[in-house]
């Protein structure tokens, strides 16, 4: 596990994901989980909420097809027996809405979230798709308004149904993807081989995130488990800035404080090939200023 320090992050509860996100979600953000049916979005969502309960956050689950009983059944099937107690104790709030009565500006839903939330609440809307399936591009501002409201209330996770034809250009998919702070895509091609289920982080605003496609499994008692963290660690490149400065015939003091800060930040990232990038940047751009 990578030791992410000094960063205020919201742990996702999904094994392996925090390391791929630079420590977890950023607080008070909207995080979109995109995937077609059977990819594990609901399990992912529940894991996020259970982690919330574990660390003392209020957790709210809004669904259009599962009530408390449905959530308990799903959780028990995965070996998460504690969910029943969490619901009974009010630590995990489950609300079922009927899609035909709900739009994203629905007062009941917003009132519920505003009443039950504080700044550290974990909110899941699973799935957001029924709320916005009739959306067109002109209604983007309304979704933006709704997302801003959610950000005020806590750190939200909204799941989105990926169309089976893979067309992400539809307004009801592309608008939340564009307006969300992070987008995580789950894929399942259904062959049962190692890379049949994969996770990809499409974006995370304001933060580093791992690039690439990472295989994941859904395991009893664990939920979603992402493989690949060890590869991220192994791929890290140790950067020797003094060696680079020597090679270029410069001293640390030759660089302005802002350039030095940029270079040190890059060096700390330690991505594969970053030493060469730093050398090229200094040689071709930064030293010329």
């Amino acid at each position, binding site marked *: 596990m990578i030791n992410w320090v000094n960063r205020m992050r919201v742990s996702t509860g999904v094994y392996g994901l925090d390391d791929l996100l630079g420590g977890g979600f950023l607080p008070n953000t909207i995080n979109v989980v995109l995937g077609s049916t059977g990819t594990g979005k609901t399990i992912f969502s529940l894991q996020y909420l259970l982690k919330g309960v574990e660390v003392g956050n209020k957790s709210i689950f809004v669904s259009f097809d599962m009530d408390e009983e449905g959530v308990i059944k799903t959780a028990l099937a995965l070996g998460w027996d504690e969910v029943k107690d969490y619901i009974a104790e009010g630590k995990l709030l489950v609300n079922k809405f009927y899609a035909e009565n709900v739009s994203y500006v629905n007062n009941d839903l917003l009132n519920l979230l505003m009443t039950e939330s504080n700044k550290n609440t974990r909110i899941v809307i699973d799935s957001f798709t029924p709320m916005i399936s009739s959306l067109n591009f002109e209604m983007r501002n309304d979704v933006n308004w709704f997302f801003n409201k959610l950000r005020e209330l806590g750190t939200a996770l909204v799941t989105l149904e990926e169309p089976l034809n893979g067309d992400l250009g539809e307004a009801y998919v592309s608008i939340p993807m564009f307006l969300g702070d992070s987008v995580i895509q789950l*894929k399942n*091609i259904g062959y049962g*081989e190692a890379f049949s289920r994969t996770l990809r982080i499409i974006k995370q605003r304001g933060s580093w995130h791992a690039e*690439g496609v990472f295989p994941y499994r859904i395991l009893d008692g664990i939920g979603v488990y992402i*493989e690949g963290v060890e590869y991220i660690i192994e791929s890290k490149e140790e950067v020797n800035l003094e060696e680079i400065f020597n090679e270029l015939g410069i001293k640390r003091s030759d660089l302005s404080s802002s350039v030095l800060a940029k270079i040190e930040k890059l060096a700390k990232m330690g991505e594969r090939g970053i030493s060469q990038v730093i050398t090229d940047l200094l040689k071709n751009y930064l030293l010329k200023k």
Partner: protein
Amino acid sequence: MLSKISNILEPLTEDEGVKMVVLYRIDGVPIFARLNVPKREIAPTLYWLEKQIKDMLYQIFSQNLDEASFKFGNTKIMLYPVSRTIILGIMADEETSAYKLDIDIRTSCKEMESLITGN
């Protein structure tokens, strides 16, 4: 998993004549890639490959091909099926020893198949 794949592919990625090693999934998604040359050097060929890959994978799997290859100037692209869902793509200089490369590729494919399918 990715670490193990990286280790298996090491003989290929360390071959000086190999410009790129990439594993594609059947839906065209690259699941592992290692470039041995600056991306700008192979970018046009890479973008061409990305556009064609889904159709090519379909052909390889539907016709049970052992391999498929293409040539662009002095660059060769070779595609080898690893399992029902994974294809290994190699971009190499034409001058690279075809015999050595072929042996390394087939060894890697065998090891990867058992890793990916669990057989």
